[in-house]
């Protein structure tokens, strides 16, 4: 009986596979590339924090550093806008530039400590899109 049931399920899956492949069109040889891009897009904030202490720390670090990095980028854009608009003098530009350089260096340190990269910090907010 168990064998019959397994065969029946396999037949159904084979039929489903055929139905799926009949509905796919295009550059099938690039499926892996599509899968990789879709995976990037679908990375979202975990709905629950992993209770494992090591993972919990890493997840929190990702979230906090992602938010700090977002603020840093917003401030940089604001500074560029003001610089291009001519509302900053040379001394202010130099001072702001140095501050942003140091912030970036500090972020690099934190990313190394927690084993994160830029993609990890660009958290996907689902329907709202990426953080930056």
């Amino acid at each position, binding site marked *: 009986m168990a064998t019959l049931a397994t065969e029946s*399920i396999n037949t*159904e*899956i084979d039929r*489903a596979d055929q*139905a799926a492949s009949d*509905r*796919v*069109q*295009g*550059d*099938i040889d*690039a*499926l892996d*590339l*599509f899968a990789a*891009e*879709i995976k*990037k*897009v679908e990375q979202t904030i975990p709905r629950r924090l992993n209770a494992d202490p090591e993972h919990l720390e890493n997840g929190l670090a990702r979230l906090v550093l992602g938010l700090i990095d977002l603020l840093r980028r917003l401030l*940089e*854009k604001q*500074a*560029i806008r003001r*610089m*291009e*608009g*001519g509302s*900053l*003098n*040379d001394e202010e*530009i*130099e*001072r*702001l*530039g*140095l*501050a*942003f*350089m140091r912030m970036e260096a500090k972020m690099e340190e934190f990313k190394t400590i927690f084993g994160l990269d830029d993609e990890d910090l660009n958290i996907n907010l689902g329907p709202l*899109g990426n953080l930056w």
Partner: protein
Amino acid sequence: MSACYLYAIVRAATPQAALDTAGPGLLDMPLQRVAQDGLAAVVSAWHPARPGAAPAADEADVWRHEQVIEALMDRGPTLPVRFGTILADAARVQELLVTRRADFEIDLAHVADRVEMGLRVLWNPPTLAAVDEAPPRQAPDNVGSPAGPGRDYLDRLVTQQRRENSVQAQGRALADELNTQLRPFAADVHIQVLQSERLLLSAVYLVENASVEAFRARIEALRRIYPSLSFLASGPWPAYHFVSDQPEPANTRMP
């Protein structure tokens, strides 16, 4: 009454015979109608012993869910419900039909005789170094004047931002060209552009049954016109993306 696993919303006039041919549903349970005010939810009983347990998203179950919906679509307008949607009991299903009746009526009319066609397109974005640097919007005295490392840092950011903006603009223009070619075949579309660096276009089109082949032919034509792009189209599917605010999947509506 046990928990109800939802497949679709249909008109209450849909005959039980349509359900009999579409079923059985998950767990080999027969399909049932829960009718209210001219609408009906197609459901099957779900794990009486474990009403809060969500179904495993295995291939066979996902296809069973899909096959039920597609069989119902053959019999009339059908609003597909996402895989894994469970309500506590028939009373909750009726409550859903009452509170969302107006939306469901509009959606049923919108998806009738139409199917969903998906499309994703990859591109190779121009490398930032290859993008012609746009002239500055303004050239105030303080931009580009010699100074220390702080100004150099901000100047580099300005250049990088202009290049990124240029790449984004090229991508959006290209995505717009593609959509312009496909839009006439669709009654509706949901489109997202540049969700990632390489994912130029991600779209779902609501296409008349009679226009599916023409839509697919246009995609083949686009592949020839844009050989540097990679296209992946799929369908026809039930119009999952054209149903407004579906009930939450899994067991989130359990008491």
